[in-house]
């Protein structure tokens, strides 16, 4: 007979303060910012005229991925000025996601509401600011609330939908997408870890112990899956930010 106790959700998500006001999530975000800066700092220190290898190659591949894989696909050549912002967004989110699969840390910083909320608010402010800068306040409101090419009578329907979807659903879905994906991955890993631990420690029924291999194998597979999800969510967050900024800058697209 085994007793499987799933810990309360706050116990797998909340962390005690390491120092007053500084917990594991804070440690992860600070480490992410430091590691990201360090990668680009070291990459910048290498001789640029040689063929890039090692850390410089890594940094340049990331930059080119942002430029060719995200900006050119969504904003076109005009958007290349946004590279540093989207680059820092991508690198920061990835480095905050990836501790979810790093042993001992085992916690994606993005599985807490604070980080995704802050990042999507930043993106929200940036794309509204871009729209106002490129089209003027009224022009931006007009182009986003009254999309051209719609019959006049339909504006009764379209305008409220556009208002809600552009100014409220966008930041909300950005936040929830990143947060819920990472939270779901974290919970999945916790579930299988708890299950395999319970099976390996099954008392009074040694026959159950080898069965623990199954959830352990699943745990390993899901860890690999989470590595992919960590990248994919950073990519999707960045590409959506790029799409929103692009649509604010050039409404006709």
């Amino acid at each position, binding site marked *: *007979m*085994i*007793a*499987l*106790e*799933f*810990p*309360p*959700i*706050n*116990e797998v*998500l*909340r*962390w*005690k303060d390491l120092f007053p*006001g*500084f*917990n594991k*999530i*804070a440690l992860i*975000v*600070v480490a*992410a*910012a430091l590691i*990201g*800066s360090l990668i*680009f*700092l070291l*990459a*910048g220190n*290498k001789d*640029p*005229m040689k063929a*890039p290898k090692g850390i*410089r190659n890594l*940094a*340049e591949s990331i*930059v080119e991925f942002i430029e060719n894989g995200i900006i050119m696909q969504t904003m076109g050549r005009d958007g290349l000025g946004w*590279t*540093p*912002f989207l*680059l*820092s*967004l991508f*690198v*920061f989110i990835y480095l*905050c996601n990836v501790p979810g699969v790093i042993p001992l840390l085992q916690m994606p*910083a993005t599985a*807490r*509401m*604070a*980080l995704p*909320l*802050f*990042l999507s608010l*930043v993106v929200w402010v940036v794309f509204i600011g871009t729209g106002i800068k490129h089209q003027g306040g009224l022009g931006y409101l007009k182009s986003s609330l009254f999309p051209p090419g719609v019959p006049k009578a339909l504006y009764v329907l379209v305008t409220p939908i556009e208002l809600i979807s552009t100014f409220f659903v966008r930041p909300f879905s950005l936040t929830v997408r990143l947060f819920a994906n990472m939270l779901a991955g974290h919970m999945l890993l916790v579930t299988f870890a708890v299950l395999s631990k319970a099976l390996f420690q099954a008392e*009074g*029924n040694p026959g*159950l112990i080898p069965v623990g291999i199954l959830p352990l194998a699943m745990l390993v597979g899901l860890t690999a899956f989470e590595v992919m999800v960590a990248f994919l969510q950073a990519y999707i967050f960045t590409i959506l930010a790029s799409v929103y900024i692009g649509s604010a800058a050039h409404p006709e697209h």
Partner: protein
Amino acid sequence: MLTAVVIQPSGAVRVSFVSAGGEEHLIDPSECLFEPENPVPAGTKIEQSECGPGPSPILPEMKELAWSGGAFLVFAILMRYFLYPRLRKGMDARYNSIREGHENADAARSGARSEVAQYEAAVAAAKVEAAKVVDAARVTLESERNAKIAEANTRINAKREAAQRDAEAAKAAVRGQIESAVSDVVTSAVEAATGKRPDSAAVSRAVADVMSAGAR
């Protein structure tokens, strides 16, 4: 609230909700992950479960918000004003040098092509020149040969004519000797037959007539 899934030896699975008060482990309220819902007087120990379920897991925590916001803003500003421009400058410098290298290579290649073309033109001109020289030499040789052949022919003809003349002269000399000998014989024969010496002029005329008739 804890969820317990109990698998019994018979194979039945029972799911039930149990409270965690099973084992007694009392903790200090400050060890809770969050402020307990019901404030406890300081110094008293409480059970783990008395910390309560805590705030909703969805709510953002202010300290996490502050740390993550600060970290991201610092990172983004560093990236915007320091890290990215530095990397980009290096990349652009390298790309430019690569492009320059390409252009230099292109220029060198086209230079080499034009040199090859010049060389080929020179070779063609030289070939034409050589053909001309060869033709001229052939013409000269031909004429020289013709001249030599003609000279040889004339020499041969002259020699042949001289030989013919010599032969004629010898023949005439021989004929003259034969005529005189025959005249002598005819004269002596006629003298023996007639007893008188015939006129030598008449005899030689007759012999010449007979011989030229015989030679005919």
